[in-house]
C-alpha cells in the first residue's frame, strides 16, 4: 500500500476495522457479501470495539437511514441516495460498497458527457479492427464487472446523465442481465449484484429521473445534520481525518472555532438564527457540512503556511467569506447584513471574528 497516494479508497483506509469485523462475524452473510448486514451497520455507525479494534463512526446521522440503505441492498434492490450537496451521499455509498464487497472502486461518474457505453461496455478499437469482436476486445464498464462478480457498482450523480444513459440502467436493473449482441451472448448478473446511485436535489432540473427508473430504486433521502451537536461532531472528526492526510502543519481547530463556523453555516443555511428569533437572508451557496469541513481545512492551511500555526480570526474570516459569497451581489448583501445584525451583537467572544470579517469586506 503506497503512503503517497493522495486519497486511499475506504476499504484500504479502514482495512483494519473491516478485517476485525470479518473475523468476528457470527451472523449469516448474504451471498456475495463479505459481512453480515448487522456488521455492515456496525462498520458504518461505529461506536463499538470488535476484537480490540475500535470501529469509528463513518456516517453520523440517523442510524435508521443506514439500516434502510443496507436492508435495501440485502433485498437486491438498487439504492438511490438523494440529498443536498454535502450530505455525505457519496461518502455513504463508498463505505457501503467497501464494507459489503471490500471494493468501492467500481464507479461510474455521471456527467453531461457520460455515454451509454460507460454504463454497459465499449471496445478496444485497435483490437476490434485487428481481430474482430471478441471478449478480449471488450472494455467492460464498472457496472458490467459488478454484474459478473456479483458485487456493487456505484453511479455518482445519476441525475446529471442524459436520459438515454439513465434508461440503459433500467434494463440492467429490471432484467438483471446485459446483452452483448456483437458476441451473441448475454451476461447474467451474479447474486449480490446491485447498484448504489446518488443524486443531488439541487440538480433536479438538469435531467429529471424518469418514473420508470425511480421505480427500480429504493430511495433514501439524506438530510442535513439534524442538530448542532451532530454537525459539530461530524466537522471535528472529518477535519482531523483530512488534516492527518494533508500535512497542514497547523493545530486542530479548537471547539470554539468549530462551533462558530457551524453556527454561521447553520444560520445562513436555514435563514434564521439558531434561537429562531431573527429571520436572515439565505445565500445562493448550499453551505453544506462538507463545505464547513473544507473551510476549516483551508484555514488550517492558511494558518500553517502563512500564519501562527493555529487558526486566527483573520484566517477564518478569509475562508468564511470565500465560502459564503458565491454570487457576488446578492451574497455580499446577505453576508454584510449577517455581520452587522447578528455577529456584531453576539458580544466579545465573536468580536475578533467580526472585526476580521469587516476588514476584508
Amino acid at each position, binding site marked *: 500500500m503506497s503512503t503517497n497516494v493522495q486519497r486511499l479508497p475506504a476499504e484500504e483506509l479502514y482495512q483494519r476495522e473491516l478485517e476485525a469485523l470479518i473475523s468476528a462475524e457470527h451472523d449469516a452473510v448474504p451471498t456475495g457479501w463479505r459481512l453480515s448486514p448487522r456488521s455492515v451497520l456496525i462498520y458504518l455507525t461505529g461506536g463499538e470495539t470488535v476484537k480490540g479494534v475500535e470501529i469509528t463512526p463513518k456516517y453520523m446521522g440517523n442510524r435508521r437511514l443506514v*439500516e*434502510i440503505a443496507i*436492508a*435495501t441492498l440485502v433485498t437486491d*434492490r438498487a439504492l438511490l441516495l438523494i440529498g443536498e450537496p454535502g450530505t455525505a451521499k457519496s461518502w455513504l455509498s463508498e463505505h457501503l460498497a467497501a464494507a459489503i464487497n471490500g471494493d468501492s472502486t467500481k464507479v461510474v461518474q455521471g456527467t453531461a458527457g457520460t455515454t451509454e457505453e460507460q454504463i454497459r461496455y465499449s471496445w478496444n478499437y485497435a483490437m476490434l479492427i485487428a481481430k474482430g469482436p471478441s471478449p478480449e476486445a471488450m472494455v467492460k464498464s464498472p457496472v458490467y464487472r459488478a454484474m459478473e462478480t456479483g458485487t456493487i457498482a456505484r453511479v455518482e450523480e445519476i441525475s446529471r446523465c442524459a436520459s438515454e444513459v439513465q434508461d440503459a440502467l433500467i434494463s440492467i436493473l429490471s432484467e438483471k442481465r446485459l446483452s452483448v449482441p456483437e458476441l451473441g451472448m448475454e451476461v447474467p448478473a451474479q447474486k449480490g449484484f446491485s447498484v448504489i446511485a446518488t443524486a443531488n436535489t439541487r440538480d433536479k432540473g438538469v435531467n429529471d429521473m424518469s418514473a420508470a427508473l425511480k*421505480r427500480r430504486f*429504493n430511495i433514501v433521502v439524506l438530510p442535513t445534520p439534524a442538530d448542532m451537536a451532530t454537525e459539530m461532531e461530524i466537522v471535528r472528526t472529518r477535519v482531523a481525518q483530512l488534516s492527518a492526510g494533508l500535512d497542514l502543519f497547523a493545530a486542530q481547530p479548537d471547539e470554539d472555532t468549530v462551533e462558530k463556523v457551524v453556527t454561521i453555516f447553520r444560520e445562513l443555511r436555514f435563514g434564521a438564527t439558531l434561537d429562531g428569533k431573527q429571520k436572515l437572508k439565505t445565500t445562493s451557496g448550499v453551505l453544506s457540512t462538507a463545505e464547513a469541513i473544507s473551510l476549516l481545512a483551508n484555514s488550517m492551511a492558511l494558518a500553517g503556511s502563512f500564519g501562527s500555526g493555529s487558526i486566527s480570526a483573520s484566517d477564518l474570516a478569509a475562508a468564511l467569506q470565500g465560502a459564503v459569497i458565491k454570487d457576488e451581489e446578492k451574497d455580499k448583501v446577505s453576508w454584510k447584513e449577517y455581520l452587522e445584525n447578528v455577529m456584531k451583537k453576539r458580544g466579545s467572544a465573536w468580536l475578533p471574528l467580526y472585526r476580521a470579517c469587516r476588514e476584508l469586506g
Partner: protein
Amino acid sequence: MKGQLFGVRHLSPAAAHHLRQALDRARPELVLVEGPSDLNEQMPWLCHPETRFPVAILAYTKAPPVRTILYPFAVYSPEIQAILWAHEHKVPCRFMDLPSGVFLALAQVQPEEAEEESGDTTEAVYRRLETLTGEDHDTFWERHFEQTAGSYQDACNAFGQQLRLTAADDELQTAETLVREAYMKRAICQAVAEGVPEEKIFCVCGAFHVEGLRENAPMTDEEEAALPCLDCAATLMPYSYYRLSSRSGYGAGNKAPAYFELAWEALQSGSLENAAYLYLTRLAKAHRKAGNLVSSAEVIEAMRLSQVLCRLRGSPYPALQDLRDASVATMGHGSFSELAVAAADTEIGKKIGYLPEGVNRTSVQEDFYRQLKALRLEKFRSAEAQRLDLDLREKLNVRSAGAALIDLHRSFFLHRLRVLGIHFATPLPSRQEGANWGEYWETRWTPEAEIEIVESALMGDTIEGAAAFALKERADGSSRIQEAAAIFHDAFLCGMPAAASHALTVLQSLSVDAAALAEVAETASRLSLVARYSDLRRFDHKPILPLLHQLYLRACLTLEDACICDSKAALAVTDAMDKLNALQLNHDFLEEDRWLELLSTVSDRDDLNTRCSGFAMAILLERGKADEALLAREVSRRLSPGVPAELGAGWFEGLAGKNRYALIARLSLWRHLDSYLSTLDETDFRRALVFLRRAFADFSPTEKNDIAENLGEIWGVDASQAAELLMRDTTAEEKEILDGLDEFDFDDI
C-alpha cells in the same frame, strides 16, 4: 394468592389476544378487571351487540371545579376482551379498582399526579429506552412484547416488576400505587369471602401491579372508610380513533389505533405476520385513492424491505416503524410527506365508536335530543350537510304561540351549541345586506358532535345551563373590552339575558381602565348593533344604554389626543371616527353637539395628523355642518404654498376618505386644488404628486372620470378629451417619468 393474575399493557392487541387464550384455559368463575369499581353498571352496555368500539367511560365530579377521568377502550383493549369473554361465557365480571370518586379526590390532592398511574416514571423509563434503542417506545414495545409468541405474560410481568423497582424512588406515586393495590386486593378477598374459590378468580391488571397484588395486604375497613371521595357521575360516550391517537401517555391512547386494530385482526386470524400485508395493501390503496400511482411491484418491494429491516433489529415481524420506513423508501420515493395522507388514513383511521339507543345518557344529551325534537330539527341530524334558513320574525299566520317563534328558538339553540363548541351547525354569512331577520345555517351531524355534547355535561345539566356556564367562564377570563363585548354579543344571540348582563358587568369594569380609541369604538358599535336589533330577539336592551353612553363619552374625550399620531396609526383613528359617527347618528340620546364640536376642533387644529383633520372635515361636510365658505377657507389654508406638500396631500387624503360624490360635486374644491398645485415649484410638485397619487389610488374609474370632467371644466377643455387623456394607458415617455417618481428619495421628508 392462588388465583390467576394477568398483567397487561393497556391498549395492547397482543395482551388482548393472549388474555383470551389464558381465560379459555383457566375457565374462571369470576373475572376482575382493573377499572373503577363504581362503574360496573356500564358493563352491560360495553357488551351490547350494537356497541361499536372505540368508546370511553367518562367520570366527572358533579360540583365545580369539574374534574374528569376518561377510560378509553378500543376493541383491542385487554380489559374489553376480558369483559366480553366473561359476557360470552356467562361468567360474572367486575371492576376492582378504586371508585372513580376516590380517583378524582386523589387527583385533587395532587393535581400533577392526575389520571395516569405511574405516569412520570413510565415516561422516564420510556425516554431512557428511546435513547438506548434509538427507536420510539411504541416500536420498542411492539418488537419486544407485541410480537413475542407465547411468553407474553412472563415478558410483561418482568417488565412490570422492573418498572416497579424504578418507580420506587417516587414516594407520592408509590403511595398512590399502594393504596390502589390494597384496594384491589381487598376486592379479591371480598370475592373469596362471598364464596368464590380463590383459584377460580381471574384478575386483569396493569403489569405494573402484578407483584403488588401478589405481595401486599388488603385494605382494612377503617382504611377504606378513610378514603377521600368526591360526588361524581359517569357516562359512556362514543370515542374516535382520531382522539385516541391525539392523546399521548400510557393508557390514554396510542399513536396508531387503526394499525393496532389491524394487528388485533391479524392475531385473531392466527398470524401476526398478516398485519404487515394488511398494512401495506391498505396504505397502497389509500395512496392510490389520494390520486397517486402505486404499482404492485412497489408494494412487494416494500414488504421485502420491511422484512429485512425488522431482521436487522432482531424482531420476527415488521413493526409499524419498519413498514412505514419501507413504504417511504419505495412508494414514497424517499420522502414521508408524499405518503402522509395515506399513512394517516391507514395508521389512525376515521373510525368512530357507536353506542346503542337507550344507553344511559348524560342529562345534557337528554336535553339536546328533547330540544331537537321540540324544535323539529331531527331531520337535520344526518351525516349529510343541509341548509337551514331561519326567519326570526314572529309569524302571524300560525296558531300556537310556540310555532310563531320557532325559528327564533332554533336560532337560540344553535347559537348555544356554537358557544359550547359543539360542531353541529355552522352559521353562514348573511346573503342579504341589512336583512337582520334572516339567519342561515349549515347543519351536519358527526359522532364527534356527540362526543362534544357529552363533554359539555361537565358544564351543566342542560344545553342552556352549560352555555351559561361557558359564557360566564369566558367572561370572567376576559381581559380586554373587545373580548367582553364579543361574549356579550354571543349571549345576546343565545337569548340568555342573565349571561348577557354578566358579560355587561365585566365589560363595564374593564372599560374603566381601557383602552385604545379603536377598541372603544369597536366595542361601542357592537353594543349599538345589539341595541338596535334587540326587539327581533325579544331582548331587553335598556341595560346597554348607559354603558353605550359611557363608551361614547370616553371615545369623545380621547379622540383629540389619539389624532396626534403617525400616518400608519391614522388609519385606525379615522376608522374609529367613522364608527363613532354612525353610533351618534343611530342613537339620539348621544349628544350631537359634543360630537360636532369635537369634529370641528379636530378639523381646525393644525397640529394633529392632517389625515385625521381631513377626515373630520369630510364628516362635517357629509352631515351638512360645514358650508362652502368653510370648505374654501380650509382648502386654501391646508393647501397653501408654505405647507409641506406631504401634509397638504395627507389632509386631502383624509378628506377624500368619505362621501366622495359630494366631494366630486364641489367644483370649487377642484379649483382650489388646481391653483394650489400650480403654485408649487418643481420639487414640491413632485412630492405632492406622490401623495396625491396615493389619495386617488382607490377611486373607481367612474369617479376618476367625474374628476376629469371637473378638471376639464376648470381648464376649459372638452370633458371627453380630458377623460380620454386620463383613462388611456401611459406612454413610454410618461412611464419613464413615473418610474423616476418611484425612485423619489423620502429620506429628507
